[in-house]
C-alpha cells in the first residue's frame, strides 16, 4: 500500500465516519462501544483497502453488523439491561406520542444485539429480507425468525403500542 492509498483511506474515513458512527451507535447503544466497533471495522477495511476501496462503505457496514453479532455471541455476559417493566409514561395525551417513542427507544436498546441488528437492517436501512440475510451470512428464515422474535419481545414490553409482526410485502 502506498501513500496514495493511505490518503484515500483517510479521506474516506474522515468523510464517512460521522454517519458510520451513528450506525454503530444504533447497533451498540453506547458511544464508547460504537467507537470501538467503528474502529474495528475501519481497521479491517484498512487491511484490505486494495480490495475494498471501490465500495468501502458496504464492506464496513457488513463488518459492523457481523462484528456486533459476533461480539455478543462471544461474550458470556450481555451488556444490555433488560427492563422488567417499560418506563413510566405520562397520561397527558399531548405527550403520549413522544413517550411512546422514548419507550420504544428504550425497548430497542434492551433487545439482544442479534435481534437489534436485524431490525436495524430491516427498518432503518430498509433492506429486503434476502439482502439482510446476505449481509449477515445467514438464511432468510433466520432473518424472519429473529425479526419475529424481536417484535414479539418489543410487543411484550410495550403492549399498548399495538405492534404487529406481520409485514405487508412492498
Amino acid at each position, binding site marked *: 500500500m502506498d501513500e496514495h492509498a493511505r490518503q484515500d483511506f483517510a479521506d474516506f*474515513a474522515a468523510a464517512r*465516519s460521522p454517519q458510520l458512527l451513528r450506525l454503530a*451507535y444504533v447497533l451498540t447503544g453506547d458511544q464508547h462501544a460504537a467507537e470501538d466497533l467503528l474502529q474495528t471495522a475501519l481497521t479491517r477495511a484498512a487491511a484490505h483497502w486494495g480490495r475494498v476501496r471501490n465500495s468501502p462503505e458496504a464492506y464496513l457496514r457488513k463488518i459492523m453488523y457481523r462484528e456486533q453479532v459476533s461480539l455478543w*455471541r462471544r461474550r458470556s455476559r450481555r451488556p444490555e439491561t433488560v427492563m422488567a417493566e417499560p418506563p413510566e409514561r405520562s397520561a397527558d395525551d399531548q405527550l403520549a406520542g413522544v413517550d411512546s417513542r422514548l419507550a420504544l427507544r428504550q425497548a430497542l436498546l434492551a433487545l439482544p444485539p*442479534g435481534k437489534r441488528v436485524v431490525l436495524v437492517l430491516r427498518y432503518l436501512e430498509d433492506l429486503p429480507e434476502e439482502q439482510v440475510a446476505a449481509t449477515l451470512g*445467514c438464511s432468510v428464515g433466520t432473518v424472519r425468525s429473529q425479526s419475529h422474535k424481536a417484535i414479539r419481545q418489543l410487543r411484550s414490553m410495550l403492549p399498548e403500542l399495538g405492534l404487529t409482526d406481520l409485514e405487508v410485502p412492498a
Partner: protein
Amino acid sequence: MNRTGELIATALRDIEAEAGPSRPLADVAWRAGRRRRVTVIGSAAATVAAAIAIAVVVLVPGHAAENPGGTGTGLAPAGGAKQNPAVVQLRSPLELRQITATSNKPCPPHSTGATRIGMRGTMQCFTLGRHEMTITAVRSASVQYSSTDADYRVVLTLYPTGAARYGTLTAYLYKTQYKPLDPGAALASLAFIVNGRVVQTVVIDGVIKTGDVAIPLNSRASAETVLAELLHH
C-alpha cells in the same frame, strides 16, 4: 413499510441522532491495518484494536530476556527483527477439538465426550467432532490481558506448521459452520482441552492465519493456572 416498521424506524432514527461526534479514527486504523497486513496479529477472540490494547502480564521464563519487546503481544517487533527461534515444549499437550453438541450434564461413563466443570461446580459435556489438532510445542506462551475485552488469556504463538494447521482448522469451522445468528454455530466452536479437561470453548468467527492461539479465561489466576498446567505437568 407498515405502522410497526415506521414506529421502529423512527425510534432507531432517534437513537441514531443521539450519537456523539466522531473522533478522527483513520490514522490509527490505518496503522493497525498495516501491521495486520505485514505481520502476525490477531487471536480467536480479539479484534485488532484489542490486540493493540493487550498488555503482557506474564512471559514464559527465559523469553522475557530474549524478547524484551514482549513476545506474544501479537505485534511484530519494530524494524522486522527476527523472532526468537527457541522452542517451548508443552508438558501437557493442548488439544483443540471441534464441538458438535453440548449438554448441561456430566459426560456418562465411557463416553467419548469431554467434561467441563464451571466455577460454580456446574458440569457440561461436549461431544467432540473429528476436526482437531494437538499442540505440543510453541514458539512462545504467555498470559496476556486484553483491556478491550476485559479478560485474561493464554496466548500460544505457533510455529509455521502449527500455524498453517490452525489456519486450516479455523478456516473449515468459519467457512463451513459459522453462522452469525444460527444456533447451529455451536458446530463452529472449538474446545481447548488440557489433560482431558475442557478449559475453555470459543466460537471461531474468522480464519486465524496469524499463528496465535488465544484461550480467553475469566481471571488472571485461571489463565496462569492453565499456562502452568501446559508447561509444567
